[in-house]
C-alpha cells in the first residue's frame, strides 16, 4: 500500500465519538498498556499516521526479508557458477596420441545415504516452517502481549530444536557419505567428477553449517531477547535461509544424481 504517496498536510477527518476505541478506557479510568511499537490495538491502529520507520515490526521484518533476498540471490549466483563449471567439465577431455578426443568423465556414484539426507533436510524444512508460523500465530501473540508467558517462543523453540537436530543429522549424514567415498578411495582429486561431488556437497554443507549457527542464535534470541519483534525477525530470517538451503540442496542433488 503506497501510503507514503499521501501528500502531507492532508486533513483526514477523524470519526466523531470516542477516539481509538481499542485504546479507550471505557470509563473505567484505567486502560490496558498499549505497546506503541507494535502498532497493534485493533481499531485503534494508527500506524498509517505514523512516520515511516515507526510503523511497527512489519517494517523490520520486511527489511530483513529484502536483505536476505539479495544475499540469497548472490549466493545463488555462487552455486550457478559451480554448476556451470560442472557442465563444462563434464564434456572436457583431451586429445590422445592418435588425435582422438577422449572425454574422461567418470560419473561418481552417489552414496545412497544422500537420499536419506535429502529426506531429513526436507523434514527439517517442514519443522522450521512450523516454528516460523508459530511465531506469527495471532492467539499466541495476543497471549504474549498480555503477558501470559511466551507461548510463541515455547512452540518455536521446540520446533527450531527439532530443525537443529535434523540439520545436524543431515551434516552427519554428509560426513558419512564422504567417509564412504573415501573408504572406496574416491578422494577429491581422484577424477573430475569427484572434484565436483566433494566441491558441491562441501560448499552446501558449509552453508548449512552457517544455517545451524543461525538456528542456535535464533534459539538464543528466543530465550534471551526481550523484544517480541526481534524474536520474530530472527526466526523468520533464519527459517527462510533454511528453506533456501533446502531448495538449493534439491537442485544440487538433482544435478549430482542425474546430471553426471
Amino acid at each position, binding site marked *: 500500500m*503506497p501510503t*507514503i*504517496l499521501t*501528500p*502531507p*498536510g492532508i486533513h483526514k477527518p477523524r470519526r466523531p465519538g470516542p477516539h481509538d476505541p481499542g485504546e479507550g478506557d471505557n470509563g473505567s479510568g484505567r486502560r490496558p498498556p498499549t505497546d506503541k511499537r507494535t502498532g497493534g490495538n485493533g481499531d485503534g491502529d494508527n500506524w498509517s499516521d505514523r*512516520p*515511516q*520507520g515507526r510503523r511497527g515490526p512489519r*517494517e523490520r521484518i*520486511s*527489511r530483513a526479508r*529484502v*536483505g536476505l533476498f*539479495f*544475499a540469497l*540471490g*548472490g*549466493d*545463488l*549466483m*555462487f*552455486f*550457478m*557458477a*559451480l554448476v*556451470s*563449471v560442472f557442465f*563444462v*567439465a563434464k564434456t*572436457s*577431455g*583431451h586429445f590422445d596420441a592418435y588425435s582422438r578426443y577422449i572425454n*574422461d568423465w567418470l560419473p561418481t556414484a552417489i552414496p545412497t545415504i544422500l537420499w536419506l539426507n535429502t529426506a531429513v533436510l526436507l523434514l527439517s524444512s517442514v519443522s522450521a516452517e512450523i516454528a516460523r508460523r508459530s511465531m506469527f500465530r495471532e492467539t499466541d501473540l495476543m497471549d504474549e502481549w498480555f503477558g501470559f508467558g511466551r507461548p510463541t517462543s515455547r512452540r518455536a523453540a521446540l520446533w527450531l530444536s527439532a530443525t537443529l537436530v535434523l540439520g545436524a543429522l543431515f551434516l552427519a549424514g554428509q560426513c558419512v557419505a564422504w567417509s564412504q567415498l573415501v573408504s572406496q578411495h574416491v578422494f*577429491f*582429486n*581422484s*577424477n*573430475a567428477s569427484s*572434484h565436483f561431488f566433494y*566441491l558441491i556437497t562441501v*560448499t552446501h554443507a558449509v552453508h548449512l553449517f552457517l544455517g545451524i549457527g543461525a538456528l542456535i542464535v535464533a534459539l538464543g534470541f528466543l530465550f534471551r531477547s526481550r523484544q517480541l519483534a526481534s524474536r520474530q525477525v530472527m526466526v523468520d530470517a533464519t527459517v527462510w535461509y533454511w528453506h533456501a538451503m533446502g531448495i538449493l540442496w534439491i537442485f544440487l542433488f538433482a544435478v549430482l544424481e542425474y546430471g553426471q
Partner: protein
Amino acid sequence: MSASSQSAAPRTRRIAHAVFSAHHRNIGFGYLTISAVAVIIGTILSWLMRAHLAWPNWNLPLHGPILPEDYLALVTMHGTLMLFFVLTVAPQSGFGNLILPAQLGARRMAFPRLNALGMWITAAGLAVLLCAFFVPGGSPIAGWTSYPPLSASSLSGPGEGPGQDIWLLSLALFCIGGTISAVVTLTTIVKLRCEGMTWRRLPLTVWGWFTAAMLAVLAFSVLLAAILLLFCDRHLGSAFFIPRGDFIDSTTILRHGSGSPLLWLHLFWFFGHPEVYIAILPGMGLTSMVLANFARRRVFAYRLMIATTLAIGLLGIIVWGHHMFVAGLNPFAGTAFAAASMAIAIPATAKVLSWLATVWRSRPQLSTAMLFALGFVSLFVAGGLSGIIVAQPILDEYLHNTFFVVGHFHLIMAMAGVFGLFCATYYWFPLLFNGCMLSERIGRWHFWLTFVFAYTTFLPMYFSGLAGEPRHYAQLTGLNAPAQRLLGATGAAQLHITAGAFALGLTQLLFFFNILRTLRTPPLLIQNPWSATTMEWSPNAFAEPADDLPAPIVYHRPCHYADDGLSFFPQWLPSPSTKEMESTSKREPE
C-alpha cells in the same frame, strides 16, 4: 554518538568509539581511508612501471633492475589495488555510506553492524593484499585477472607461491565484504526511503548506487566461486583450469581430469565486466545531478536516465565475452557478445546526450565540482568511443593486449571514475565537514592540471597501441629487430606518457593540500552552499534521529529550479507552484 556527550570522555575512548562504531558516517570514512591508502600505493606502483617503460635500464634503489617478472608484479598489484580497493570501494561503499541515507531522507543505513562488518572485512582484504609484498617470492605476477595456468601452479613464476595465495585470500575477503556492503545498500534504498520518496523521485546518484549494488550482488559471488576453484587447483590437486599434461618449469602437472583456462576466463570476466560498471555507475549518476545543479536546469529526460542506468546494468551482465575474443572463444559466441557490447553504446550515448542537453545554452556556475563533472563527460566520451572499437572482434584481434585497450579503460574507468570521486569530494565537502568549502582557486588549478595531464598520459596510449605496443611487456629493448622497429615507433610516446603520469600523480598533491588546508580553517556552517535540491542538503539531514525532529518528507522530484536561475525548489519543501509544474510538464506532479 554525538560529540557533545563525549567531549568529556578521554580522547582514546572517543577514537575507539569512532573507529569501531556502526554509524554510516564512520563506516564511509573508513572505506575512503581504505581507498586513500590503496590509491597512494597504486600510484607509486604505476610510477615504477612508467619509469621502467621509459628507462628500462634504470635501477630501482634498494632493489636493483626491474626484471620482467618484477614488472608483472607491479602490473598485478597496481591493477588489483586500483580497481578493487579504489574504484569499487570509494564511489560505491565510501560515498554511498556517507551520503546515501541522507539522500533518501533516512537516518541510517539498514543493518548498521553488518555494514560495519563489511567495512572491516574489506579493510582486512587490503591488509592481506599488502602482505603480498613481503612474503617469500613476492607479489603475484599473473595480473589482476590472474589467468591460469600461470596462476594455478606455484611453479610458473616468482610470486606464484604464497603471493598468489595471498592475492586469492585478499580477493575472497573483498568479495564477501563487497557483497555485504551491496546487500546493505540495496536494503537501504528499497526500505529506508522517507515519506514521499518514490522511485521516480530518487536522485540519479541513488539509481547509480542501486544498479551498481545489484551488479555487485550478482558478480562478486561468481568471483568467489572462481577463487575457490583456483584455490582447489593450486592446493587440492584438482584440475578445473589446468589442461591435462600441462608442462610448467620442466615439470608435467599430473592431475586427474582435464581442465581449461577458458573456464576461468568465463567465470572471471562474468564478474569482471559488471565490476567495471560498478566502478562507473555512481559517477554517472552524480554527474547528472551536479551538471543539473550548477546549470540550474532540470535533468534532461529524467526517467530515461533512470532507464538507461538500469539498462547499462542489465546489459553489463551479458557482455563479459568481449574480454575473451582472442582467448579461443567460439567466434559465434564472440559475435553475440560483440553485438551486446555495442548495444550498451545506446544507453551510454543517451546518457551523454542527456548530460549535454542539460547544460546546453545554460550559463553554468563553473565551480570545481561542475568542472570535474564536465571533465567526467569528456573523459567518458574519449574513453567510451574506443570501447565501441574494441567491442568488435575483428578489430580486437589486433588491439587486444595492446596499449589501445590500456588507454581505453584508463580514460573511461580510471580517469572518469576518479573525476567522479573528485567531483563528489568538492561537492559534498561542506556537507561532511560542517560547511567548510574547499578552496575554489586551488580546486581550479587542480582540475585543469589533472585534466590536461590525464589526456597527456592516456591519449597517446591509443596511438602507441595502434602502432602495436603490447601490454604487460616490461620492455622492448634487448629484443630482436621487429621489436626494435616497434620501439622506434613507440619509444617517444612512452617517454611522453611517463612524463604525463608523473605530472598527473604530483598534481594530486594540490588536492591533498586543499583538503588539509580547508580542514584547518574554522567551519563556515553553510547549510546548502550549492543551492541544491536533493535531500542530503536539507537541514538536519545528518542530525541524529530524535523524537523532536520532524520526519523528512519529499514533495517532488529533484533538480527543480525556477527559470530565473536563482530560486529553486528543494525536495524537502513543498513547491508553491505544483499546479504550474503540472501544466508545464503535462502530467501529474512529480
